[in-house]
Each structure stands twice: as C-alpha cells, then as structure tokens.
C-alpha cells in the first residue's frame, strides 16, 4: 500500500489519509439478507465508483441501512459477493473492514462518551512512541484533521457533552485517522439542524475532493440531491435503479420508492359507526424536542395510523399518550383526563401499549409465557393478593387462544418463542381486561409473514369490537391497509391527515418527506423536520 499512515512509530505523520491514493471502488453482487425470516435485501447488485458520493435512498425498511452496513463490513450478507477494487472480500468483523480502509458512521454514534475528543479520534489507532502514547504527535494530527472537518472544540473536551454534529465530526476524524478511503454514512443529517447538516454536506464534498468514496444513506431527499453524484433507489429490499443524481428529482425518487408489494392481504376493517363516541382525545401534547402541539381524536372502533419517517417522533408521541414519558398537554380517555407520565394510571383508564421493542419494553424474556400474559392484570388471577393457579391457567390459555399464539406450554420462557409468537404474547397480556385504547407501535416488526397476517386480523377484530386503535408502522402499506385514517408526523408535529381514499401512499410519503410538490427547492420542509 502506498501510504501507511498509522505506522506505529508515527513516521508518516504528515501524510493525509486518502490523498493521492484515491477512494475505493466497491461492487456488490446478488446480495441477499434476511432477518428472522423477514426479507431485508433480495438480489441487490450495485456498483459504487471510485471517489464518488453514492446515495442510497428508500422508504423505512427498504433495506438501505442494511446495504450500507453490508458494504461497511458491519453486517454479513446471507448470499452474494462484495468486491473492493476488483477483489472479492469477506470481512468477518468491522475491524477487518477498517483495516481495508472502510469506515462506517452509524446513525447511533459510536463515540465513547466519557473520553476526550482526542482519545476518541485515536481510539484503536493510538500513536505510540516507545510503547508510550505519543501525545504530541496525536495532538498535531488532531489539529490538522480538526481543520479539515471544521471541528472547533478543544482536544481535551469530553465527547459525551458535545453536540451531535461535533460528535459526528469526531467520528469522521476517526475514520480519517484510520486511513479510510470509503466512508459509509448512515442518516448522518437526521439528527442535525439545517445549518449543521449543510456543514456536514460540505465536509462530505471536501472528502470527495480528496478522493474518498462516500456512501450516503439518507431519507432526506433534498440533501441527497444536493450532495450525491449517483443515487440508488431501494424498495422492499430490492434494487430499483441506479442513476446519476443530475437525472433525479425528489419526485422521481419518491415515485421509484412507491408501488405496492402484494405480499399481504390487508383485512379491510369495517368503518366505525357514524355515532361512535370519541375514546381518545389528545390536546396540545408536547415534549420538546421530540414532539410539539399534537392534537387528535380517535373514536371507538376506529384505527388511526401514525405514519412518518423513523425519528419523526411517532413512537415518542405514543409513549407520551400512554404516560411512558412525561409530556405536557392533555390526554382524555372517554372524557376523563389521564394523569400525565403514569402508565399505571393510563392502564387503569383503559389504555394499552404494545411497545416498539418487545424485548426491551414489552416482555420479561426469561420469565414464562404465563407470567408475561398475566403481568398487567394480576388482580384478575388473584384473590386477596394470592395467585389462583387454576384461574391463571385458564385465563392465560384463553388469551393465547385469542391471539392464536403457538405455545407448547405456558410455563416455557417467552424467549424460547419465535418473534411472531412473542409479539402475540406481548399483545395477549393487554387483552386480559379489554382495553378501550390500544396503541400498537410497530406491531409486526421482526415477525414472520404468517404472524403478520394474524396480527392484522387481530387488530381489525379488536377495532370492530369497539376499541380505539392507534397504530404506528414504518411500513406504509401496513398503515394504509389497516387504518381508517392516517396522521402523518414530521419533525414531531402532525403535518397532514388523510381519510378514506385521500390516504394514498404517494401523498403520505410526500407529507412525511416534506416535499411539497414539483419544483420544491426550499429546505423549509426538512428544516422543520429537525
């Protein structure tokens, strides 16, 4: 290799990582990837040219992040090949990819919060001089890189206290210290203000000038147009097309992402009767900066979908309503106000939350199926605080039957179940006493096709029995297929509402992305979203 910047003696100090060397050329061929039986990528082939900025775009769950991570060596494909500079590679760890000059800057930043900026930048690539850290050389190199990426903080500042934008710069500097010639950035601008995002785009351009290849995974289409040389569109894990950015517009990209995949049959829920009473009334619900001034109603028997991009505030709104996080504003169920920030109170008033992550928030994974099902309404299976074994077995069996969970014995740990059955258990625990409001956050995430269908039918059935249902999903087809009404969230605000035939994939997507129509060149929409 021409430039070995990280010589242990630090001799090549003055050489900048990629200069004169050029970026890497990468091509992936026939990549397949499944997670828990759910397709993430199918037969994807993409070529990334040397020294270009290549954007990967698509809906939530289209597979763009997965593809980025596969290229960065952080995720291994099930099938298919990856070639770097014409040579087929198979990285067994991110470490090997780093050594080959590939770096990943993830959505979830990987700065060590308690370490200084300097130590973070040189993490794993510390300069040594006779076995000791060479502080002087590191400091000099740090200043050099700081200027390149526009990092203005001190070397000794603690990384955890820095703004996201600055932490990102630290990660970019870290990539450069390691001699990265290909940097995969996963949603780098999502958590930045408009000004910071623009600065990040400028840094990316500067890196391209120096010959670094950049893969830019983003759902901010205007950023993509402003930055990328080439755009690849993914949809449902499949590659739609790769074209020069100059030939794309926000419109053409959205159109390419759209289209229904006919994998599921969505049961059409019967509309709520016209005189159905309002069950949930949310007014001015605010928890800054996550969401602001959210107001809406849901009537009995109605399924309302909450659509929006990942990070738009959907989940936060749901948690705010349920009291999982404190929020200001008012939430009423059947006309009675909830005590904000108290899930216990919300449950007593008839609310139920099927949380986003069943593993972290929904189930005690090592406890039995039976214990998980009876956890919420233990009073139903107790007499004078004492558990009634027979009554519990009966109730649990009945609930498992209702959600059609396949469970060998209710005494088995819930961790031994498949994702789909786990999710059914997570739902079953709320049905021991019929709730008035069910909030289902990503109800079909990480479950197999069959279980998905069952969960759709269950939600429909619950609504038809008079429950108000608030459903959140990253899969827009799911929202469209099940909801009577769709609310679109962007930047923590409800920006659009679609009812009946007005709810179309295209209009929802447009509202979620913040594109207002052809010729939309202002950044206002996306600035809002931040």
């Amino acid at each position, binding site marked *: 290799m021409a430039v070995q910047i990280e010589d242990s003696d630090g001799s090549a100090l003055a050489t900048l990582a990629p200069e004169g060397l050029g970026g890497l050329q990468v091509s992936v061929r026939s990549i397949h990837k499944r997670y828990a039986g759910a397709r993430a990528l199918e037969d994807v082939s993409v070529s990334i040219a040397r020294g270009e900025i290549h954007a990967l775009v698509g809906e939530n769950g289209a597979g763009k992040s997965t593809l980025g991570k596969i290229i960065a060596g952080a995720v291994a494909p099930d099938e298919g090949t990856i070639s770097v500079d014409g040579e087929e590679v198979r990285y067994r760890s991110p470490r090997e990819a780093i050594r080959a000059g590939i770096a990943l800057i993830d959505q979830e930043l990987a700065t060590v919060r308690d370490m200084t900026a300097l130590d973070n930048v040189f993490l794993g690539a510390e300069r040594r001089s006779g076995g000791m850290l060479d502080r002087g050389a590191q400091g000099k190199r740090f200043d050099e890189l700081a200027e390149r990426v526009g990092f203005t903080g001190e070397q000794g500042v603690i990384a955890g206290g820095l703004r996201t934008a600055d932490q990102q710069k630290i990660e970019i500097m870290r990539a450069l210290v390691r001699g990265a010639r290909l940097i995969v950035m996963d949603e780098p601008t999502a958590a930045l203000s408009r000004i910071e995002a623009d600065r990040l785009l400028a840094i990316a351009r500067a890196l391209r000038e120096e010959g670094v290849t950049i893969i830019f995974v983003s759902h901010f289409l205007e950023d993509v147009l402003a930055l990328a040389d080439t755009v690849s569109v993914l949809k449902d894990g499949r590659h739609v097309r790769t074209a020069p950015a100059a030939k794309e517009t926000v419109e053409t990209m959205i159109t390419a992402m759209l289209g229904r995949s006919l994998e599921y049959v969505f049961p059409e829920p019967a509309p709520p009767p016209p005189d159905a009473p309002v069950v949930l009334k949310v007014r001015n619900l605010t928890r800054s900066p996550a969401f602001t001034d959210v107001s809406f109603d849901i009537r009995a028997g109605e399924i309302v979908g909450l659509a929006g991009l990942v990070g738009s505030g959907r989940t936060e709104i749901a948690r705010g309503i349920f009291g999982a996080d404190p929020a200001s504003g008012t939430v009423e169920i059947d006309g009675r106000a909830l005590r904000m920030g108290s*899930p216990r109170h919300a449950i007593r008033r008839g609310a139920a939350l099927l949380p986003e992550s069943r593993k972290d*928030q929904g189930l005690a994974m090592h406890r039995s199926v039976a214990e998980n099902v009876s956890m919420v309404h233990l009073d139903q299976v107790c007499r004078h605080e004492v558990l009634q074994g027979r009554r519990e077995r009966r109730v649990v069996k009945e609930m498992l039957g209702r959600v059609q969970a396949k469970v060998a014995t209710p005494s088995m740990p819930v961790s031994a179940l498949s994702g789909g059955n786990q999710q059914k258990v997570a739902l079953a625990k709320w049905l021991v006493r019929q709730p008035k409001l069910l909030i289902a956050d990503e109800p079909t995430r990480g479950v197999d096709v069959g279980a998905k269908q069952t969960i759709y039918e269950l939600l429909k059935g619950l609504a038809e029995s008079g429950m108000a249902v608030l459903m959140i999903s990253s899969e827009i087809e799911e929202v469209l297929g099940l909801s009577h009404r769709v609310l679109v969230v962007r930047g923590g605000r409800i920006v659009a509402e679609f009812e009946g035939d007005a709810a179309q994939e295209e209009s929802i997507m447009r509202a979620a992305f913040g594109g207002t129509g052809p010729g939309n060149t202002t950044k206002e929409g996306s600035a809002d979203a931040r």
Partner: protein
Amino acid sequence: MLDEQPVTATPTGGVALDPGSTRGGAAGAVVNVVREYMIVVVVIVACIVLALSSDVFLTKENILNVLENAAPIGILACALTFVTIAGEFDLSAGAMLILCGVVAAKLEPSVGVAVCFLLGILASLAAGVINGLLVTYFRINSFVCTLASGLMIAGLGLVITGGFLVAVTDQNYGDLAFNALAGVKWSVWIFAAFALACAFVLSRTRFGRWVYAVGGNVEAARLSGINTRLVKIVAFAVSGTAAGIAGVIVASKSGQAQAGDGISMVLQAFAAVVVGGTSVTGGRGAIWRTIFGVLFLALISNGFNLLSLNQVYQQIVQGGIILAAVATDALSRRRTV
C-alpha cells in the same frame, strides 16, 4: 426498521422449544437442566459423602447443630433472594443485623427482652426502607448505595455503644437461642417459618410476581403498570426486617452486642443465594434454591469440622464453589441469548 431487528425466530413461525437449540438442542437442554437442579444434586452428594466418611454426620445432634448455626445466615439469605431477584443488591444487611443487636442490648434494661427485640427489628426495618428510598428516588446503584449506607449504619452502632461491648445480664435474653420446641431450637423454627413465608410470597402472591417482573425487565414492568419503585422499596424493607430477625437470634445467643459492619455475613448469605442458582442479574431465582445454597455452605463447614480438615482451606473451597455457580449461570445465559 427491519434492518435493526435481529430477532430469534423460526422462519416457519413455529415454536423453537429450546433456547439453546442453535448449538445442538441436546447440549443446550443438558446445560439448562444442570443449571436448574444442580444445587439439589450437589447437596445430596455432599450429604452422602459426609454420611459415608463420618459416623457423627447423620446424628440428630449434628444435623440440628448445622441448622442452628445456619439460621441467621439463612434468614439473611432468604431476604437477599428477594432483593437479588428484584435486580438489586443489599450490602448493608450485615450492618443492619448488628444494629438490631446493638439497639436491643442497649434498650433491654429499660424495656425488657421482648420489646427490645421488637425495637431492634424495627430499627433494621427503618434502615431497610431508607435504603429502598435512596436506591429508587436517587437512582443510585444499589451496590454502592448500600455500601455507603452500611458504613453509616455500622457507624450508628458505634455511636450508640460508644465503641464498647454491651453485655446483657438478663437470663431471659438467651431464651430465644437456647430454648427449644419439640427438641428443635427456636432459632431453627424461626428460620423455617421465615423461609416458608418468603417462598410463599415470592411464588404464590401478586407481589412475588411483581418482584420477578421488575427484576426480569424493569421497563416492561413499568409499562405494565407495576409500581417498580414500591416493589424495590419493599424488597429492601424485607431485607432490613430479615436482618433484624437474624440479629435478634445472634444477639440472644451471644448475650452481648458490639458495633460492626457485618460484611462477612452479607457475603456468606449472598454466596448462598448465588450458589443456589438465583441469577445475579435479576428476574430469576427462588427461595428453595437459596435454602439449598445455605445448606450446602453449612455442610461444607460441617464437613471441615467432622473430618478434621484444616480450616485454613475452607474459604478457598467456598470461593471456588461460588465461582463455579456463577460460571454455570453465565454459560447458560450465553446459550440462551
């Protein structure tokens, strides 16, 4: 996004019966069964070995003696099982045990035996509640929190006694430790009753379920409407009460009190909990496990005595056993996740 959900699931949507099945179901199942009942097997084996190698072991006197000696640690261990399953730790239990004895010994001359014991237990209970409040409201790591509070409680004992040994002259003070019912010392009866009560609460009541839920997944418990703070506070209160009861037994037996941190007693009790198979990460365990753990450690100590082994090695053996127990837990965890 789908991208971020590597969830264990079978593509068919069927049931994967054994969590360790990814690496050969049989091996995983064996590890789980071993983990499940190892402590029972080990106690039985220890009994057989001791019975074969010592004539004294199976005598009524020896067995009652083992149980009597194990009673205070056993009571402490039952309470620590609560705290551990709830996902917390109580390092101050030993200090509370000693505080109870100090309070009782100091007050005995003025209020009499029964009342002074009651007040001693109340003092420990109060300390336990304070522990619970500190841990839940300030969100202090319970290990650190009870290390600190344990020091303070020990210091309080020192203030009360002025650093002196407090001797009790009343003959009745020792009744609890030396009198027997149906040939069995009161202390053993108290241990048995306390263990049964704990076992009942943990496995048969709503509160017991809450304890498992809070330790198993505190966020899921909170979102299920469980008052997770209250559960933890009560667990610490149980620990304080148990320390008080154990303290009464110790005090009655010795007839005197001296301030101290009692740290070695907590560690022994905790060892019994862990050896029994209660998971140190919370959410899994049982009182019967702890009872077997207590018995096992008591048997080892008894074995050293009966077989005239050099006492110097006892701690090394105990330490090794705890290590083995924790390693088994860690191993099974790696396979399940």
